[in-house]
């Protein structure tokens, strides 16, 4: 079953066509990768799905319902959460608070209840903290619980972004270059983390990544963009050997290396 369907999606910036007539289907509970050279339109695609940009034309359907025209927070409330290529944390809040904010849409604690000190609200808040702590443990940040997010090193910030997105318990998780800034060892850990995530949260994952090792290892399906156009799609093995993809994106070395 397709959870997300993208139909003829196009985005223009002035004279520049960032994505052009893209059609994609993402199967529920799959891990789908979107790859392509720099400036191919991958991030733009994410931005349209999450309503940061409005598509010039085309449609995006979540379980058959169109997302076009919604506000970003509404898309999020429908169960689509993302990470950002250029990290966007709440820098002046603690690491734990960042995760708590991620949990907000599932957190049933209205502020009036907090003011009245209702016992069940306190319980909810307390439980949320424990859960947030668990998530931090999961992404390996349990030693930085009280640190301001802005003070973390680059790699740690990336992991926090993933943790924050996880906390939202989304139906679809969009990861924009999650492995950037991580060394091979850390990337390995991240690979299995993403893998686990799918089963643990029963989530569909769409991922942009330039680390081919990671992509080939965990993707069920891959879409390749170039200059805004879809140039190939298929299972990892098909993509790996696709001539057009090698030419435009992978380069000879990458194939050899693998």
């Amino acid at each position, binding site marked *: 079953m397709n959870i997300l369907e993208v139909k003829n999606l196009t985005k223009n910036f002035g004279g520049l066509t960032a994505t052009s007539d893209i059609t994609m289907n993402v199967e529920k509970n799959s891990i789908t990768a979107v790859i392509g050279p720099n400036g191919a339109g991958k991030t733009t695609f994410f931005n349209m799905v*999450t309503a*940061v940009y409005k598509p010039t034309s085309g449609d995006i359907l979540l379980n058959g319902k169109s997302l076009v025209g919604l*506000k*970003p*927070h509404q898309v*999020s*409330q429908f169960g689509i*959460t*993302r990470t*950002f290529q250029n990290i*966007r*944390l*709440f*820098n*002046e*809040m*603690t690491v*734990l*608070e960042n995760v*708590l*904010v*991620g949990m*907000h*849409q599932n*957190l049933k*604690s*209205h*502020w009036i209840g*907090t*003011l009245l*000190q209702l016992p069940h609200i306190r319980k909810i*808040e*307390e439980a949320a*903290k*424990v859960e947030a*702590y*668990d998530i931090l*443990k999961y992404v390996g940040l*349990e030693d930085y*619980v*009280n640190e*301001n997010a802005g003070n973390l090193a680059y790699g740690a910030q990336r992991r926090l972004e993933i943790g*924050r997105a996880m906390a*939202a318990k989304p139906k679809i998780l969009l990861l924009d270059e999650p492995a950037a800034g991580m060394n091979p060892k850390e990337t390995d850990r991240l690979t299995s983390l993403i893998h686990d995530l799918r089963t643990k949260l029963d989530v569909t994952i769409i991922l942009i990544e330039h680390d081919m090792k990671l992509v080939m290892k965990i993707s069920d399906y891959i879409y390749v963009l170039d200059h805004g156009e879809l140039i190939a799609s298929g299972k990892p093995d098909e993509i790996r050997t696709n001539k057009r993809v090698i030419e435009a994106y992978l380069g000879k070395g990458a194939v050899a290396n693998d």
Partner: protein
Amino acid sequence: MSAFFGKLMQSKKNQIILFIAYVVLAGAGLFLLPDSTIAFLMLLFSILILYHLNFNLRAKWISGIVILAIIMPFIASQSDSYQTYMEVGTLVGIYCAMALGLNIVVGFAGLLDLGFIAFFAVGAYSYAIFASEQASKFMPFGHYPLPGGSFWIFIIVGAAVAALFGILLGVPVLRVRGDYLAIVTLGFGEIIRILLNNMDHPINITNGSMGIASITPPNFFGISIGSSSQFYYIVFGIFLVVIYVVRKLENSKLGRSWKAVRDNEIAAQAMGIPLVKTKLAAFAIGASFSGMMGVVFAAKQMFVDATSFTYLESTMVLVMVILGGMGSVPGVILGAGVVIILRTQVLTNISNWLSSISADYGISIPPAISPEKMQLLIFGLLLIIFALYRTQGLIPHKNRKVNVEVLKKESAEAALAREKATSGGADS
């Protein structure tokens, strides 16, 4: 010396003893000295000391309330300057609440507001109009002035009306971002002030620039409340409520949403936080504190006119927030206290003192530079010095830290419970 002192302060018992000694000393000074502004300030200072001691939270709160609500007023009542002290206390309370309100907007939600005094004005006028003859000039029904007992209802009304205005202001805010907001709020503040100053025709609602005089004083079970020492308790009560609300909100879901919006709007939206609603909530709640205090202010002054609500006043409240430490509740309170006490007490006293010594020593100062006129200059210099030496504010904001050990334990327990549940499920 300082090492010795440090050691002394390590033990909790010593701390308690020294603190009590300090309070007693300051209290005695206030009691015994005829003109005891310094002792009065020392007594207020004890609250700051209290804040820095490591008692548990409840003990701090109780001692603070006891000092401010019982010890200080009682001792001061023995002094000639009783009403002055209480007046200062009342003003500090009023501005603290206002600054705490602005702190929600600026410190938590990161929205720079240069017209905050408008909400204070709205609160003040809502009481002034109905608790004086003024209302009868345009209201076709009802008897005005309303009796003093209505004051208590008006505290709520003032809060509600101000909140409404907060939302009204919020509407343009939905579109305007960042520092453009500053000017929109400034404009809004000015518009409100000008309207209040001019709405005496065609219909006379605010009595225009003549202001509204003879406002009915509040009435508490038949006692008419007129003196600063009485208002002090009203303000103190509201102030406690405000503090409670702010502290609770700060660490609630709403409080986190504010900060998230402040730190990164795009990410906040991506986490499902609705920008508009969150910002409006900040404006409305912040404004409501201001509105409540506006009602009190009108009742206390017994006269309101638009000159009390100028743009300069807005910036003063902003100064309190930033000087104290944006986002930091104790800091903002201290900031408000420092600014008010400086402006109403210390600067006046310093200039009086300067001119009296120059008179005593027969130094003739040209009228152009007589100390009476130097208040603003000294105030300006002090602001600069404060800002340069406390760049993060008087008490910088710190994020509340959670106890990781507790979390660790609870997390382990929860894991165990889950495990049990699943294995239990397998059993049956």
